[in-house]
């Protein structure tokens, strides 16, 4: 399944690590776009062309948690999953991201491929059940005569 992922981190090295880790999970055929901070992420986020978002917490200009709040507030009918990938791992932070801001999953750094696979797998399965990427769904729909 093809998935268009937006990866947001102020560190180019970390963006590459997240993208490489996702490729290695082999959970989907990922196509990546990148953003350098939360504000850049808000600009680059397109609910019609983004299937899943991976966002760091601790960033200049706009933090990851503010990005999640902004997206959930401005795209109220958007169900694109947002995954926090962060070194912040106190219970309070996890609760703030998942329960209050509206992130779908929380991956604590440092992570292994297996750990990422375990965290992402249910979300990818859910997306697959919905028909994969919006682009893929349209194409699939056309093939099926939809």
């Amino acid at each position, binding site marked *: 399944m093809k998935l268009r992922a937006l990866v947001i981190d102020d*560190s*180019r*090295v*970390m963006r*590459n*690590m997240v993208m*490489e880790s996702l490729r290695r999970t082999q959970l989907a055929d990922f196509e990546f776009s990148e953003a350098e901070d939360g504000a850049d992420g808000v600009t680059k986020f397109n609910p019609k062309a983004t299937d899943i978002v991976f966002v760091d917490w*601790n*960033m*200049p200009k706009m933090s990851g948690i503010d990005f999640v709040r902004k997206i959930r507030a401005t795209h109220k009918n958007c169900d694109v999953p947002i995954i926090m990938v*962060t*070194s*912040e*791992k*106190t*219970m*309070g932070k996890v609760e703030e991201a998942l329960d209050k801001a509206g992130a779908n999953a929380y991956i*604590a*750094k*440092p992570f*292994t491929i297996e750990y990422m696979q375990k965290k992402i797998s249910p979300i990818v399965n859910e997306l697959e059940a919905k028909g994969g990427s919006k682009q893929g769904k349209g194409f699939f729909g056309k093939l099926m005569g939809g």
Partner: protein
Amino acid sequence: MADLKTNTQQIPDELSECVRQSVLTNIEMMLGVELSSRDSDGVDLPCEGITGIISLIGDVSWSLMVCLPRDTATAVAVGFVGFEVPFESADMGDVVGELANILAGDISARLDALGVKAALSLPTVLRGKDIDLLLPEGTPSVRHIFSSSLGQFSVRITAGEPSHMRRSGE
């Protein structure tokens, strides 16, 4: 745990041990190498290299400094990202900043479990020779030196935030 929040005369042993265990656990996990540690006994590790600094601010104000000599930084970066990162590149700054961030995040979680709340600042990374912060006299500070097949590096925890510290010449 009140001592952890209120002791400004010295770095509490619990914090020092928290930092040591965090470095051992995370570096071994990330880089797959065995680490040994020792207290610096006041003797600094000579360091022409790169230093990541991050602050923990909340119930307490502490700063964490991760200092990697050039050769160690280059070896650690390969282990961290899986490819060579030139020492002079911006990516090397990313690696060391992220390393400091991961360690501080883990320390913050360990402190949280002890009832101490502290948020992380953004990391600052400096490259140069024998980088040090000149602290006001009596500022508590503890430094651990770690050794592995990738080389030696040091991690220092200091009371206060960098903005409250003196810089050279002041």
